[in-house]
């Protein structure tokens, strides 16, 4: 038996491979698109994994600290620490802001981690270079995606921080690289406006007769001092003692401390289900459109290739070739085109596209397998038009007149 499709491909392989590469780039974009979605989900999960927490205790009735803003007093952790089943409780603050380094600034999520040592909740769970924070102030561990290097001096609000360690895949749910700094600095950074704003605020307070009363010396100072502290954090990360059920501990905190508590599953639901839901739908739409475009292109290419062979197909039919043979010719070509496209797509997506995307692109092997199946199915479906055209060819056409 002879493979007509194979011979045809071999005959015009240059054109075929070229077309396949073109299709491959499109498939690469499609795979990258799926990768971007996976990356977003993975970003969300990485954020949760990296926090090292079992429970997130946040302001009552908020979806904090990632999806909504939340603030609770920074001594709440003490009462939480005393709850049964709580192994540790750590304050944490999150603030997405531009961090300046020299001439440039980078959008980052500045994370204030509670003082302690490596392994504390909220601390970067692993590093790729440098060391963990050892000083209680003015040291930072930055994600490598921020482009910061060891020894760089960062400016966060008005303080300068030295980058002492680098991490990887420590990103916010929107993919911004994280910068870890000590909690007290972070609280200050969250509170502190620029110096002008502080000055204005002090002036306003000083001009307010209610605060600046000559009969009560020291009142103004006290008021300004009370304005200049930030006793809030965004969340308390709680680790559960082994042997305790996180839902039970969460319920007791909800009940007795009147705070909102999320377990890992609920947090994932918030991040994946709420925070990136719109983006996910957006990407799903893109996937659908790209699939349709891909199939349209495959269909068009195969249809054109078939029309170019219409005479030969007529001759083949005239000399008695079975329809099956002709269908196989077209379908095999379509699938072969899809295969080349898929191989090229997978390679370009992995080696060329994923690294240059600003956000994390996670190419799951399972997605590739599904993508492969989809490509084959799309190619088979796309060849139907060409097959119909081929089957409609009248063998009489081969005989002149």
């Amino acid at each position, binding site marked *: 038996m002879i493979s007509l499709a194979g011979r045809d491909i*071999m005959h015009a*392989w*240059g054109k075929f*491979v070229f077309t396949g590469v073109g299709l491959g780039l499109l498939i690469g974009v499609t795979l990258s698109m799926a990768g971007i979605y996976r990356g977003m989900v993975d970003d969300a999960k990485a954020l949760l*994994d990296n926090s*090292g927490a079992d429970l997130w205790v946040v302001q009552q009735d908020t979806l904090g600290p990632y999806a909504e803003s939340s603030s609770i007093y920074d*001594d709440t952790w003490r009462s939480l620490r005393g709850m049964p089943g709580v*192994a540790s409780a750590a304050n944490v603050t999150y603030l997405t802001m531009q961090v300046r380094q020299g001439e440039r600034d980078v959008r980052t999520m500045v994370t204030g981690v509670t*003082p*302690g*040592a*490596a*392994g504390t909740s909220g601390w970067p*769970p*692993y*590093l*790729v*270079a*440098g*060391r*963990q924070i*050892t*000083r*209680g*102030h*003015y040291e930072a561990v930055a994600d*490598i995606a921020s482009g910061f*290097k060891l020894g760089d001096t960062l400016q966060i609000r008005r303080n*300068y921080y030295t980058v*002492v*360690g*680098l991490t*990887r*895949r420590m990103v916010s749910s929107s993919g911004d690289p994280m910068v870890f700094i000590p909690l*007290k600095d972070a609280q200050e950074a969250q509170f502190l406006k620029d110096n002008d704003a502080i000055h204005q605020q002090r002036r306003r307070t000083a001009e307010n007769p209610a605060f600046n009363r*000559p*009969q009560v*010396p020291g009142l103004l100072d006290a008021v300004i001092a009370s304005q200049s502290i930030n*006793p809030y954090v965004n969340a308390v990360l709680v*680790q559960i*003692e*082994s042997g305790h059920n996180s839902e039970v501990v969460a319920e007791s905190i909800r009940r007795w401390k009147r705070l909102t508590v999320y377990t890992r599953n609920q947090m994932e639901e918030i991040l994946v289900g709420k925070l990136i839901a719109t983006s996910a739908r957006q990407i799903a739409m893109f996937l659908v459109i790209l699939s349709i475009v891909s199939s349209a292109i495959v269909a068009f290419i195969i249809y054109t290739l078939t029309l170019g062979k219409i005479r030969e197909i007529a001759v083949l039919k005239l000399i008695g070739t079975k329809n099956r043979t002709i269908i196989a010719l077209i379908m095999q070509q379509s699938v072969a085109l899809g295969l*080349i496209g898929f*191989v*090229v797509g*997978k*390679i370009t997506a*992995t*080696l060329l596209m994923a690294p240059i995307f600003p956000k994390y692109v*996670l*190419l*799951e*092997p399972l997605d*590739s397998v599904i993508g492969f199946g989809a490509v084959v199915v799309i190619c088979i479906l796309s060849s139907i038009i060409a097959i119909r055209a081929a089957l409609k060819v009248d063998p009489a056409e081969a005989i002149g007149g």
Partner: protein
Amino acid sequence: MKSLPIQGRTLALVVVLFPLLALFIYVALRSGPLAPVPVTVARVKTEAITPALFGIGTVEAQYTYKIGPTSAGRLKRLDVEVGDLVRAGQVLGEMDPIDLDDRIRAQDAAGKRAEAQLSEAKARQAYAQIQARRYEQLLTARSTSEEIVATKKHELEVAVAGLQAAAEELVRVHSEGKALLAQRSNLKIVAPSDGLVTLRHVDPGTTVVAGQAVVELVDPANLWINVRFDQIHAGGLTVNLPAQIVLRSQAGEVRGGRVLRVEPYADAVTEETLAKVEFNQLPEPLPPVGELAEITVALPPLPPAPVIANAAIRRVDGKLGVWHVMNGDLRFTPVALGLADLDGSVQVREGLKVGDQYVVYSAKALTADIRIDVVDRIPGVTP
């Protein structure tokens, strides 16, 4: 030669498709979740580390004098400006006396009047005495009546009492005059000690209440730094430990100092331990009070002990430990950690022996069944 076209095509096909396929297989296996994780490793070393404490403080004066009037009034003049050095006893300014001077003058006049009254009383008393004595002699000579003598005696007693009253009145008026003078001098604002004027709260013409500060003085010879150490990082902090001071305005310039005092009260709200650190030698020019300073207190060096990098410490299932590399396999080993220094070295008390190999950096979170690829540097990290 006839078959060349086919062979040429086959060749080209091999040249293009095989690398493509090889690349595909490489991509499928070596990237994504199936790829081995690059890690760097190190061995547990024996090292003497010098732990240190790091804190943030502000430059403060040991003694701050807030000087103001003791009674409400209006500031008349203020002779010093911020930055002036003043000596103890120097008059810095004065409150407006309003009617005090007139009252002093009135008191003066009252004094003089009292003196005059005293003279008058003396004269009366002298006359009354003479009269009394003469009538006594006349009585002895029986040339007057007893009744008249008694009257004269009585007149003398009245005159003596009058003299006494006039003398006391004079004392009173004098004392009142002194009191007014004292009040007058209290309106002067006087430096209690040598010092530097740091604040001038109000200007002449302002009415101030009793106790409100008009100027503030500090003693520039006695600047110290009020340092806050996070309680977690304050272990081992004691008096007389050497300290390094870096002022915010002079970053990079390290000054010597020592811990003068560890406050008996910690800050319960901010969870910080407070301490005072003084300069070995005061910087010239003096740093402004309130300037931020970074303090590093060196603790005594520890004897050599097994040490690992703090970047290697991970928490797995609630346990602190490191990834121990044994024959290329990963095993999570819980460790007990000792003291740490500020450069990222931590003593290991239990769990690892000297020479054990452990993962320092990894490109991903590790699990026990992950494949690792030991590299010198994690890809993407620039030296």
